[in-house]
């Protein structure tokens, strides 16, 4: 129930951002469109509270702020590596633990790694991720306790 309300609210916001024409006819079409999408969503089990835990949304902005900082840091790191006249990289594969109970946390973990320059998730297993890393440093950043802490907080908030 909570989830349906949340999804509807997001869809309404999306429609209002897209439309820009707030006359009766398009607004009615908007209501009908959102109703159709919600109906399909229910019928085909597309999105539910497992996909979009309402509580997670409260926590996510703070996680994103932290992630953004990490992204900026490693961006600078990788940019320097690219401009260095002699390539100084240590490409490597490694399995790192990802012992999360919920799929959402694992997905956030995997995608955060990919979003951070210098590291890409290659494989997602039950409780490990296979990661390819550009340098030793970017790999160390992934294994730092800070990342674990952030994700633990995220998992608790569902």
């Amino acid at each position, binding site marked *: 129930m909570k989830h349906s309300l949340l999804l509807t609210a997001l869809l309404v916001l999306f429609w209002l951002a897209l439309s820009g024409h707030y006359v009766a006819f398009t607004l009615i079409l908007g209501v009908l469109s959102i109703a159709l999408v919600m109906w399909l969503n229910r019928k085909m089990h597309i999105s539910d509270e497992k996909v979009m835990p309402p509580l997670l949304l409260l926590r996510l902005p703070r996680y994103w702020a932290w992630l953004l900082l990490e992204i900026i840091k490693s961006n600078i790191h990788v*940019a320097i590596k690219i*401009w260095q006249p002699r390539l100084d990289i240590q490409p490597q*594969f*490694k*399995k790192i633990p990802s012992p999360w109970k919920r799929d959402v946390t694992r997905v956030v973990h995997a995608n955060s790694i990919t979003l951070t320059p210098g590291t890409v998730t*290659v494989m997602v297993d039950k409780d490990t991720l296979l990661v390819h890393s550009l340098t030793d440093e970017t790999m160390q950043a992934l*294994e730092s306790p800070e990342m674990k802490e952030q994700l633990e907080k995220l998992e608790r908030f569902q």
Partner: protein
Amino acid sequence: MWDILVSYCSDALLITGSFLSLTFAIGLLRFPDFYTRMHAAGVSDTLCAGLIVLGLVLQAGISLVTLKLLFILLFLWFTSPTASFALARAAHRAGYRVSEQEEVASSNS
């Protein structure tokens, strides 16, 4: 005063964004194999796109366009790592390895 500040900010964001996009395009050419190139490519999708889009947001001011731009950014940040992951997975699955030594599959947490 405020306007000038905003326009400077927007310029700075755009310039940084363009510089980064060039940097990572060079990385795409310079790095020796597929997985390393992937780091160069994936990046331009995230921060570089973010900087340029934010630069445009500041130019547009607060309007519907802002909201649309933010939606673009949000979707890009959800979909592009997913595409990168799918591609890396496909390469790995197809047996694409750089060299055997790099396959360190040890997990020491």
